[in-house]
């Protein structure tokens, strides 16, 4: 007879979820499930809209990463127009995407996750948050705020507003960057770079202190998927798909986004609104792959900026082949912040960055368009089919958090097997299950596309599904 533990709701993530832990007749953890219990249905209600409206509609999927949806959607509409957008528009889109990565990673690292390490997993949960962090390490709270603020200022300067900018459009972007805007961004860049370097140096130095979490929080072989440039360098906005295996060996490379369905399947499970994408050649559920900062650092051949290349070399010493521990998503975020700040500076130095040639004008010439971009949490696909008059007839979106769904379930199972003792949900188990999920920085608003938000809930269930214990926070 199996038993079940439920953690419901999960805190300090964006969205609504609960966790159930199933025990077998011997009382051992059989499996754990990460349930996403809300539904929004963007894919359905976008049908019937003009394809030109899609960037501004789909940006509303999320208030945390609207830029990612805006860019993936704009790229899908570029594909419908069959245009190669102006180089300046490509660079401006890259800057905005990287700025969003900075602000999103800063929120995840400094304000949502670092309280676990600074205050301790077993510290009072009422204090284990950004306010508790500010009490004991005010400089860390301030530096996180400074990075977020700079990232948001970059987005506002380039795209006109911080949240839900309607700036990326079919064929390019709606407005060029001004000289004043470039100077404003550059003025804040040295502080952002200093914070990125300082924080990375601290975390890299102390990473060994987290060896227990690295061993237990999602440490397993899997594939990794990310965009890479033509030479294998990091690519967050343009680029082609690359899969690598747990040894870091390239499994598939330079795949055009429009061909993603040859490589990625989408399974569903009755216990969650979150889809379960998988690597098609290995089938479901064996084709588990991870996306996001860890996957990007595992997949790329190099970062492409001087300091980030040095940091990447040090990061890779954490693994033989690929770095497998999902705990190291946190470390990977810091490497990416450093890369993003450096890369934004490079792009702003390009002589064409202030060009006013930022949008191609064209009529729709294809019936299907696929756009892809790297959101902070991982690769994001928007796939549109349109009928006569440019009316959208079918939409498929594969969101980063969904692609980490199989890995999150395995992570929760691994943590439960290690920390569950007996038939009671202890505070220690609750804290670590939460932290294991939080390493992925899941955005459930995006991935279900869920409304509302929820705290953590865990249930422990027996072999027949009977409730043994429950804990909520």
């Amino acid at each position: 007879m199996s038993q079940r533990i439920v953690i419901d709701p999960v805190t300090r993530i964006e969205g609504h979820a609960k966790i159930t832990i199933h025990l077998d007749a011997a009382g051992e953890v059989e499996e754990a499930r990460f349930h996403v219990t809300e539904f929004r249905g963007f894919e359905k209600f976008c049908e019937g809209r003009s394809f030109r409206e899609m960037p501004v509609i789909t940006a509303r999927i999320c208030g945390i990463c609207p830029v990612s949806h805006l860019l993936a959607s704009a790229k899908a509409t570029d594909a419908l127009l069959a245009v190669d957008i102006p180089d300046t528009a490509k660079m401006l889109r890259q800057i905005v995407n990287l700025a969003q990565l900075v602000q999103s990673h800063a929120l995840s690292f400094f304000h949502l996750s670092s309280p676990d390490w600074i205050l301790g997993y077993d510290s009072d949960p009422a204090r284990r948050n950004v306010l508790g962090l500010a009490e004991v390490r005010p400089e860390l709270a301030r530096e996180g705020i400074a990075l977020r603020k700079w990232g948001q200022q970059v987005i506002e300067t380039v795209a006109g507003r911080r949240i839900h900018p309607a700036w990326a459009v079919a064929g390019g972007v709606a407005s060029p960057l001004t000289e004043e805007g470039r100077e404003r961004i550059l003025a804040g860049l040295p502080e952002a770079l200093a914070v990125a370097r300082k924080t990375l140096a601290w975390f890299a130095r102390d990473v060994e202190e987290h060896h227990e979490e690295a061993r237990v929080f999602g440490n397993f072989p899997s594939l990794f998927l990310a965009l890479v440039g033509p030479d294998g360098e990091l690519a967050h906005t343009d680029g082609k798909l690359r899969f690598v295996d747990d040894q870091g060996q390239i499994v598939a490379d330079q795949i055009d986004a429009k061909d993603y369905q040859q490589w990625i399947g989408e399974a569903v499970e009755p216990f969650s609104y979150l889809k379960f994408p998988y690597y098609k050649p290995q089938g479901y559920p064996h084709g588990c792959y991870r996306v996001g900062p860890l996957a990007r650092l595992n997949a790329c051949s190099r970062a492409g900026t001087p300091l980030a290349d040095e940091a990447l070399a040090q990061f890779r010493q954490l693994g033989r082949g690929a770095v497998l521990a999902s705990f190291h998503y946190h470390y990977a975020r810091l490497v990416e912040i450093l890369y993003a700040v450096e890369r934004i500076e490079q792009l702003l130095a390009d002589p064409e960055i202030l060009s006013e040639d930022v949008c191609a004008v064209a009529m729709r010439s294809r019936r299907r368009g696929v756009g892809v971009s790297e959101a902070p949490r991982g690769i994001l696909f928007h796939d549109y089919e349109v009928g006569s008059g440019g009316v959208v007839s079918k939409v498929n979106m594969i969101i980063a958090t969904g692609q980490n769904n199989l890995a999150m379930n395995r992570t929760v199972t691994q943590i439960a097997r290690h920390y569950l003792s007996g038939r009671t949900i202890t505070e220690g188990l609750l804290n670590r299950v939460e932290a294991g999920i939080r390493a992925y920085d899941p955005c459930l608003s995006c991935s279900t596309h869920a409304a509302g938000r929820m705290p953590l809930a865990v249930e422990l269930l027996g072999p027949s599904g009977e409730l043994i214990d429950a804990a909520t926070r």
Partner: protein
Amino acid sequence: MLLALGNTTRGDDGVGVVLGRALAAKLPPGSVHVEEAIQLLPEHAEAAARAEAVVFLDATVTGAPGSVSAHHVHTRAPREALLHALTPEEILGLARMAYGRAPQGLLVTVAGGDFSFTERLSPEVAGAVPTAVEKALSWLAPYLNA
């Protein structure tokens, strides 16, 4: 500083933003820093810490539609299940802990009745805007005259 909160595409939820604009129009140019936001985030604490006083303007689901409420905001211990969005009390608490000072705070709310997908306020809520603005102005007067 005015922190005008709300989603202007969700009917009465946008009243905080409407209040922020109406209030700013009645204040001497340059005397206030106005921020419009859908929700309160950690970075608002940095701006708040630099302000002499902060007025939080928001909609509420509590009370009869159009009823106006104003009360002082005190720094508060953090919630157990802290999510991405903070409360006015937590913003002031974070300002004090991270930046060493918390300004005086006032929260002015208007109870909403219609939070559906529209950019218009319901008649009750629109009619309450002048009252809410007057309450905020009255509280701000000592700071403006200082």
